[in-house]
């Protein structure tokens, strides 16, 4: 009974942490993609009919918008985004498989 309680509690803790991590990562990815889309929006503007000064300033905006914006950087783990979720799940599965083979 106690071992079962321990396992269920660990499952709950792991699930909760995973949900929280996914929430932060998805929001960070959303901000990154939204900021990146500004460069596309500027290019889709009718910039051919604008003055040269405006075209030059729009070029600066495009260059700056193409640098990804991250709102969640977890220390040494890097940026929290969807590729990071994939990487964590992948490493977790490999670790579980290694432990199962070891035992």
């Amino acid at each position, binding site marked *: 009974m*106690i071992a079962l309680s321990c396992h269920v509690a*660990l499952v709950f803790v792991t699930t909760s942490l995973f949900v929280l991590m996914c929430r932060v990562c998805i929001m960070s990815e959303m901000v990154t993609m939204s900021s990146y889309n500004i460069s596309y929006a500027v290019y889709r503007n009718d910039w051919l009919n604008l003055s040269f000064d405006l075209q030059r300033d729009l070029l600066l905006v495009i260059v700056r918008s193409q640098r990804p914006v991250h709102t969640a950087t977890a220390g040494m783990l890097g940026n929290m985004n969807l590729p990071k979720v994939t990487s964590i799940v992948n490493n977790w599965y490999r670790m579980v498989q290694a432990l199962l083979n070891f035992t």
Partner: protein
Amino acid sequence: MFSSQKISERLRETLRFFQPKPPTLFIRLWQAFNGYVPFAFIALWVSFARFDSAFLVHAQEGSTDPFNLFFIIGSFTTCFPIYHLATGRKDYVRVSESVISAAVALENQVNHKQMQHMTKTTRLTRKLIGSYVFETFTNIFMAFALWYYSAGAQKSFFPFGPLYFQLEHFVELFIIHMGISSGAAMLLYHVEISICLACMYNVVGELFLEVCTRESLNELIRIHQLLLHASKILQQTFSIQWFAVLFTYLLTITVSTYITV
């Protein structure tokens, strides 16, 4: 220049995201239930498992030492969210102000009618963060008070056997839930501000599609700079608080393992 009606509709949709709800009791309870359901499940399960085993141990040996150890760990667990708030409160205020300044600038582009509404939003955001600080201080105070009573005067404070266990079981549940929820509150606020930022970036992208004059381009570049500034501050805040959050959850897992084993 801009199509006023379309942008106004988009702005109203955006503002709904970062306009804090009135801090009534019902809305707070609803938010707690909505955001902390997984943690409530953990606390409930751990408390039920602990109650069965601890009651049997006490009935056989008459020992109460594990309870004291638990309260010490639980008190430390509730202490760590104060680190979140001490480091992140000013930064979150700055992020909110940057986002709201960008929204106000956007609003100036279309009309001036909702200026007063935006000022009210700024004040409400400050109140929201202040309520988090108040809740955390309250949790810490209650955790230490309960720990003091349980460690020093438990026999006189809880004189009855079964009732004593039931009350302490409730106290454990309360401390675990409050400790975790206080730690998660700032993360949830981080998520809310990220949603606001994403919406603001989308609005700015739509405005860039229609820019054609020098004045409107200058204004949009200034708004874009504000949004980039807010994103940078948000990133720095998360990179600091991430360690505190991790440590809080590690302590929680330790407590859970200690209770269930």
